[in-house]
């Protein structure tokens, strides 16, 4: 009989370890979220630019000219007309440039929008720095309202040499429900 109890104890020991292991792996799935964010911040893996303002004090590199293209979309049922004032600009790394984006709300009610940036190629994302951007905060437009939203940026001279063209894309999302229904969370972000 003691032999049986011994086996049961050994079984329970292994069982306990495996249950703990699977709970840890469940946690690992959630740990992947911040891990991914950190990895993306470092490498620009997902083409996301920083969501905080950069200082803007940097040496200009006049020997190099890089084309920066702008793409805009209204995503996920967003009705705004959303366009860049210019489709592309040629800049020297370190040169501070302002580009305005025009938005118009054709709807008959107030809409709060949030622009989400994405840079291609992704490796350029950490080198595209903004001192001011409408994408840092959400934007409110009254029914029929229009606005020119500024975005001021410069390219880090450390931008890899092989990158000569950068595409900066903005997807505009309707976050009215999210903001009005869930204020606390947005403030925390």
């Amino acid at each position, binding site marked *: 009989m003691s032999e049986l109890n011994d086996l049961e104890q050994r*079984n329970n020991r292994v069982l306990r370890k*495996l*249950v703990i*292991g699977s709970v840890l*792996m*469940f946690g690992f799935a*959630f740990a992947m979220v911040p891990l991914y964010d950190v990895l993306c911040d470092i490498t620009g893996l997902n083409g996301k630019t920083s969501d905080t303002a950069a200082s803007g004090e940097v040496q200009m590199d006049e020997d190099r000219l890089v084309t920066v293209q702008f793409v805009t979309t209204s995503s996920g049922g967003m009705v705004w007309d959303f366009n860049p004032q210019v489709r592309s600009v040629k800049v020297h790394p370190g040169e501070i440039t302002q580009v305005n984006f025009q938005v118009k709300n054709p709807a008959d009610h107030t809409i709060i929008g949030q622009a989400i940036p994405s840079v*291609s190629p*992704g490796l350029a994302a950490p080198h595209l720095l903004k001192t001011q951007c409408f994408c840092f905060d959400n934007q409110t437009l009254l029914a029929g309202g229009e606005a020119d939203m500024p975005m001021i940026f410069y390219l880090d001279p450390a931008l890899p040499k092989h990158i000569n063209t950068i595409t900066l894309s903005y*997807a505009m999302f309707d976050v009215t429900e999210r903001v009005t229904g869930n204020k606390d969370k947005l403030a925390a972000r």
Partner: protein
Amino acid sequence: MTAVAAHHDHHDDHHHAPHGLKRWLFSTNHKDIGTLYLWFSFAMFMVGGFMALVIRAELMYPGMQVVDPEFFNQMTTVHGLIMVFGAVMPATVGLANWMIPLMIGAPDMALPRMNNWSFWILPFAFTILIGSVLMSAFGEGNPSAPNFGWTFYAPLSTKYGPASTDLFILSVHMMGISSIMGAINVIVTVLNMRAPGMTMMKMPLFVWAWLITAFLLVAVMPVLAGAVTMMLTDRHFGTSFFDAAGGGDPVLFQHIFWFFGHPEVYIMILPSFGIVSAIIPAFARKPLFGYASMVYATASIALLSFVVWAHHMFTVGMPLAGTLFFMYMTMLISVPTGVKVFNWVATMWRGSLTFELPMKWALAFVVLFTCGGLSGLMLALTPVDFQYHDTYFVVAHFHYVLVSGAIFSIFAAAYYWLPKWSGVMPNTFLGELHFWNSLLSVNLLFFPMHFVGLAGMPRRYADYALQFADYNWWISVGAFWFGISQLLFVAVCVLCAMKKGKKAEAAPWDGAEGLEWTVPSPAPFHTFDTPPVIK
């Protein structure tokens, strides 16, 4: 591998075997639970197969023919989910339940009550999932079943998912819990319940393959549970894991999903490697060539499976260094896989080969799985993957490794061990018909998909450009042929279950070795109450 029981005595007369419904509902017997798993997975194979035929009926001719595109999407989604989680995985768990205790000389699985629970969750999980399809087909207003593909990428499954996505999430959670419990049971059994003298390196390869599979399951099924939990909170509790508008990232979903998804591929195929490694030596009448290398190859495939996931998402716009890393790692997997294929061939080299049914299926597995492996190698190349991505070439690839790979090996296992399970030999005439019809039809069904894929036919659409019409007609003919051929296997199984056929001896295959052949056929309700002694 030369393990032989010096003596065995079975006490089936001394035990009271329960009868009727209670026998199955409350069973803690590994053989009964194995049988339940196998029948359940077979039923799911038929349900998922029926959905595949709906898909092929629609695609037989260009234009809209049988179902509307919305329902077509639901069919592709639920077909994939049922085949992966309902057919292949439970079938291999059923084989593990039946065979692992018999192969290592254990009286039962280590945790029999948990074993009962892990099976009985499944019918409920699939009732929920299939229920959503039935509602879509017959319900008031035809509410959509899950329609985002079996990979349920966000935001299709979060922002744009139908209401039934929540049913899907619940059922995936249940399947996950069931798989994790089944895997834990296998690990505990293999580590603690081996008969005296059955050292790890004497274990049959099927046991090894399943032990490694079980570790994969414990490692990645919780990650899948995490992914669907995030979906649930994104859908209903205001989080933005995958919602770009709230600062999340839909590509993150793909990383989490494929971190589960790639090991999942090996979860489905490693047990097959074990099965084939049992059958080929038996009918070549030679011990398996390179036993130790097989064990190490299986383990290294499992380890590598954790660092290749992004080859499913080369086109999301990864940096070059990332694609190169995942490309090389993926191609590295072909080394241990090649070791296995060469070992099987070397086992047959100068063997006294005979071609009974299990051997036929196993050989078809080796050849066709290798075909699927080679197209996998093509897909692993990042530059060409950009052309193949999300085309029928991918569909051809994974059906070669899953249908003519995993499922053929499960058929091989069934023909090989049915004498032990049922006590009668499977009907040879029906079995031969089943084999030859399946072999020919599966190639007619999946081989032309390579060509239409290379020519640019995208997967998951209810319609296609006219130039693909001829190929698709033949593919659909192959599909119906393959589907109908499986009815022959129903007949084979029913005949065995009714004990109609030639009575099987304890060791019906003369070249087969292993402890399972030392107990009578059919295996008595209780075996190895006294552990066998392994030389």
